[in-house]
């Protein structure tokens, strides 16, 4: 299996009474809460952490895209990824991803991802999320009724732009581009692996199967809440006659590793409660604009009692905020290295997930603690689980870097 180290890049100084005094961490979060000098420090520490994870042997390092968001300081994940191409040499660089409908023209994504693939020597994983309503509908004013249509059209443009040898014109419903001929093109042929972060939409599962993309369920609510969704995904793969190769799937999980269980429970409580208490304080009015969810998804969700129950127990409205509940509900897997390894093995086996994305830094966790968590996971957990699936399955969705790559020169 593959272990990927995922950063959200949260702002760490949201006040203690944030929940009571501010309506939302997202969209209309008060800009007076932000100190740009702190963000300067955050970026440097967060990039250090990503690079450190790469050094310690994580298979991949991940960044993502959020807008007007107090827990995600990455409106441009490509900027983050570009620095990682220079300061790391081994890990896959997983941009999870670019919300395709937000780029005008979408060839911008084809260009920037191609640049990242060239800069990194073929280490890019290209993530294509639709994006949350907060990011797309409200921060970026995309029409909720057209978002998905635009997303699919943008996807078609990017994929064609990467693979078509000749300059072509794209006469789409939303994009009319007379001359498409992106330079550079990706190192990886025919294109970098494509991973699709999504919710529990049947259409997305089918689309991933049809296109042969990796489906990633990026939930903040851990493996227990993820069970129903991943079961739905695999049931759908069965129906479509696809194999159960665990590398078809990705899953996000918070982890908190200590030398002992007691230490882990003490060390990570504050950061977890900061994340679930403050970072997930999203005004529900942003959550579900009409049109964002397809009618088929609404029908499927309402009909699926399992999915409904999972949503109720784990959705943002009813999410736990106390450390004990966070642990009991499985949002965070905490313990000594052996305990965490055992649980991770169980989770990946049960969910049948070959790409595990780990949040080792969350909330207001200090950089020292984030590195401690990362080191314990890399050195004491990862060796116990890395062999999982590899005797049975081939990861056809992993980057294929150049065998000989240029490295940055030393700076004098």
């Amino acid at each position, binding site marked *: 299996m593959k272990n990927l180290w995922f950063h959200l890049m949260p702002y760490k100084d949201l006040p203690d009474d944030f929940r009571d005094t501010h309506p939302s961490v997202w969209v209309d979060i008060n800009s007076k809460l932000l100190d740009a000098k702190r963000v300067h420090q955050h970026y440097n520490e967060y990039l250090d952490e990503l690079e450190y994870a790469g050094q310690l042997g994580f298979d991949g390092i991940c960044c993502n895209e959020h807008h007007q968001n107090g827990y995600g300081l990455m409106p441009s994940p490509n900027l983050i990824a570009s620095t990682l191409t220079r300061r790391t040499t081994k890990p896959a660089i997983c941009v999870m991803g670019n919300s395709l409908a937000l780029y005008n023209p979408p060839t911008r994504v084809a260009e920037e991802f191609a640049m990242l693939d060239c800069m990194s020597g073929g280490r890019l994983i290209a993530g294509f999320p639709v994006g949350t309503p907060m990011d797309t509908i409200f921060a970026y004013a995309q029409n909720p*009724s057209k978002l998905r249509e635009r997303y699919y059209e943008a996807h078609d443009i990017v994929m064609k732009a990467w693979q078509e040898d000749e300059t072509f014109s794209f006469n789409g419903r939303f994009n009319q581009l007379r001359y498409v001929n992106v330079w550079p093109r990706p190192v990886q042929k025919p294109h970098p692996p494509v991973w699709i972060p999504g919710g529990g939409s049947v259409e997305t599962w089918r689309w991933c199967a049809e296109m042969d993309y990796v489906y990633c369920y990026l939930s903040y609510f851990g493996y227990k809440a993820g069970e129903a969704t991943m079961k739905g995904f695999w049931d759908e793969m069965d129906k479509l006659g696809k194999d159960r190769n665990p590398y078809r799937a990705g899953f996000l999980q918070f982890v908190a590793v200590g030398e002992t269980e007691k230490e882990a429970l003490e060390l990570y409580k504050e950061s977890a409660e900061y994340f679930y208490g403050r970072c997930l304080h999203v005004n529900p009015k942003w959550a579900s*604009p*009409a*049109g964002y969810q397809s009618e088929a998804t609404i029908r499927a969700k309402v*009909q699926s009692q399992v999915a409904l129950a999972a949503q109720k127990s784990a959705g943002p409205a009813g999410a736990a905020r106390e450390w004990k509940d966070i642990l009991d509900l499985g949002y965070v897997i905490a313990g000594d290295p052996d305990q965490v390894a055992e649980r991770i093995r169980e989770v990946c086996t049960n969910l049948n997930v070959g790409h595990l994305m780990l949040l080792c830094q969350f909330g207001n966790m200090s950089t020292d603690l984030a590195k401690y968590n990362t080191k314990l996971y890399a050195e004491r957990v990862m060796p116990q689980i890395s062999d999982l699936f590899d005797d049975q399955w081939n990861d056809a969705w992993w980057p294929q870097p150049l065998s000989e790559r240029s490295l940055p020169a030393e700076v004098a």
Partner: protein
Amino acid sequence: MPETRSLTIRDREVRVLEEGRSDVPVVFLAGIGGVPAWTPFLEALAKNRRVIVPSLPGFPGATEFRHLDSLYDWVVHTLETLELLDEPTFDLIGSSVGGALASEIASLVETQVRRLVLIAPFGVFLEDDPAADIWAQVPGPKSIPNLVCSHPERWDAIWEMPADGDEIEWSLLRTRSMEAAARFLFPFGNTGVTSRLHRIHNSTLLVRGSEDRVLPSAYNAVFAEGIQGPVRTIEIEDAGHLPEIDNPEMLVREINAFLLDQEN
């Protein structure tokens, strides 16, 4: 109860409800939520007029709308609908979302539309006096009625699910109509109609609920200033954004008086 028939526009069905008698009919283009059932407002209006209610795309009675992308598509669709009614002339009432389309039609077509009634029409946006964001609402069945009505229980009465209804499909009717409105009005409801209002020469009644929490009163003032024909501006008491739901009695009295004045 009204007579129900169906128009086919570009291979898609559009429901048309009709009731009442008069040579020149009144065509009603509905506001937020549309017309899930014949309403007290339409019933009262049909006592003196022949009332024709074609469904807007995506609103109850016309499921399909995602083939319409631009405002231009929506206006052309509305024009085709009105042409297919096959009435040489009619009075046109447009409320809220339907008001945005009614004003566009009136700015384009001089011959067919006789008098115009606009009830809190969408179409403009004022940065200093912003309209409510109807798409940023807490999920749940109460948010929209509480926003658009002073008497949400009257909305609920209109939206009572038929005995043989399916709960999911019934709730999708509302969601779909909100999405359809977004299709051409998101994010502000600003259609740019101000640059076309000078083409409206019709006698116009501009209506607003005195308790409208969606569109501030300044919005109707923009219409009043831009429309070239004679404009009468009124407020309906005890009514929110959809006075046809909140206070149908007073609204119908005002509409009847306006139409009668123009005829005399």
